[in-house]
C-alpha cells in the first residue's frame, strides 16, 4: 500500500497523498498557488499535467523569497 510521498518546506515535512493524482490537482488539494512553487522529482521538474503514482516521491519547493532589499 503506498501513497505519493510529498516533501514540503518551511518547515520541512513529508505528507502522504493517495495516488494516482495529477500535479495540478495535488497543488489544489494542498491549497498551493502554482505561481509560488515548483514540483521536483529527483533532480528534474515535473510539469502540471503529469500523473503521479503511489510509488512517486516528489518535492514541492517554494520559489518566493522574502528579502526586502
Amino acid at each position, binding site marked *: 500500500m503506498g501513497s505519493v510521498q510529498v516533501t514540503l518546506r518551511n518547515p520541512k515535512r513529508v505528507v502522504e497523498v493517495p495516488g494516482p493524482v495529477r500535479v495540478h490537482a495535488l497543488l489544489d488539494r494542498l491549497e498551493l498557488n502554482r505561481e*509560488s512553487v515548483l514540483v521536483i522529482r529527483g533532480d528534474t*521538474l515535473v510539469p502540471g499535467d503529469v500523473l503521479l503514482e503511489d510509488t512517486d516521491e516528489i518535492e514541492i519547493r517554494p*520559489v518566493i523569497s*522574502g528579502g*526586502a532589499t
Partner: protein
Amino acid sequence: MKCTVCRKPAVIDVRRHNANFCPDHFVAHVQEQTKRAIEHFKMLRRGERVLVAVSGGKDSLALWDILVGLGYEADGLYLGLGIGEYSDISGDHARAFASERGLKLVEVDLRDDYGFDVPTGAKAAKRVPCSACGLSKRHLFNRAALDGGYDVVATGHNLDDEAAVLFGNVLRWNVEYLGRQVPVLPSRPGFPRKVKPLVRLAEREMAAYCVIRGIDYQVEECPMAAGNRHLGYKEALNSIEQTSPGTKAAFYLEFLDKAAHLFNTDFEEDQVGLLVCQSCGAPTTAEVCAFCRLVDKATGAVPVVLGPTR
C-alpha cells in the same frame, strides 16, 4: 504538455507567455528575456566589467550563470552577513558555484572585516534587520565595485521582487520612491551603475532555471525575512496572477514604459549636494555616512545570539 518551440516533452509552463518549454528552450527563453532587458534599458555594453552581487540564492546565481553564458565578463561578490547557519550555507553555495565554473568570487565579511553581523547591527541601530542589511549591502557593493574597477553592479532582482516593491509603494503612494524604481541607475561620482537584468523574469522561472541548469542554491529562507510585508505583497500578486496570468508583468513593465517618468527622479543628494564621509570617504549627505554610523553603533553592542532556526 509539449514544448511550444520543438514539440518535445515540456518540463515547465510559462502561462503569461502562453508557452511550455523543454529544458533547452526554457534556457533559451531565459537568456532571451535577459537580453531583451539588457538591451531595452541599455544596462550593459560589451567589454564592460560586471560585478554580480551574489547571495547564494537562486536569483543571483542564475544571473551570474546567464551573464557568463551571454559572454559578459562577470565576477561575483559575496557579502557575509553573519545571519547564523543561513549565511554559512549561502556562502558555501556561492563558493561552490564559482569554483566549479572557474569564476572569480570576491568576498567581504561583515564580521571579519567590520566587526559585526546583521542581527547585532540591527538591534544596536534600532533598525529592522532588512534595513541594516540593505544599508550594508548597498554601501559594500558600491565600495567593492569602485575598489575593483568594475563599471557596473548587477543584482538578481526579478519581476516578482520589483512588482512587490512597486505594489507596496503604490498602496501608500510613496511617490518619492516611484521614480527611482527603474531597473538601471546610472553611475554618479562615487557610485557605480546599478542594473537588474532579471526584471522580465518571474521568481518561479529563476528557480526553474537553477533546477534545469543544475545550480545548487540556498533554498531556505533568511530567518530575518519571516512575516515581512514584502512577502505578503508577493503572495497577493501571485493570487491575482493565478487567475489572470500576465498581471504582474503588465503591472511592473507597463509602469516602466508609461508611468515611471512622471515621477521625480531627483535624488536627495542632488539637492543638498554630496559630502565625503569623514570616516570612509564614501559620498554621503551627512558628515559620517549611514554605514559608518551603523558600524560604530554595532561594534560597541552586545552580540545577538540566534537560536536554532528550524
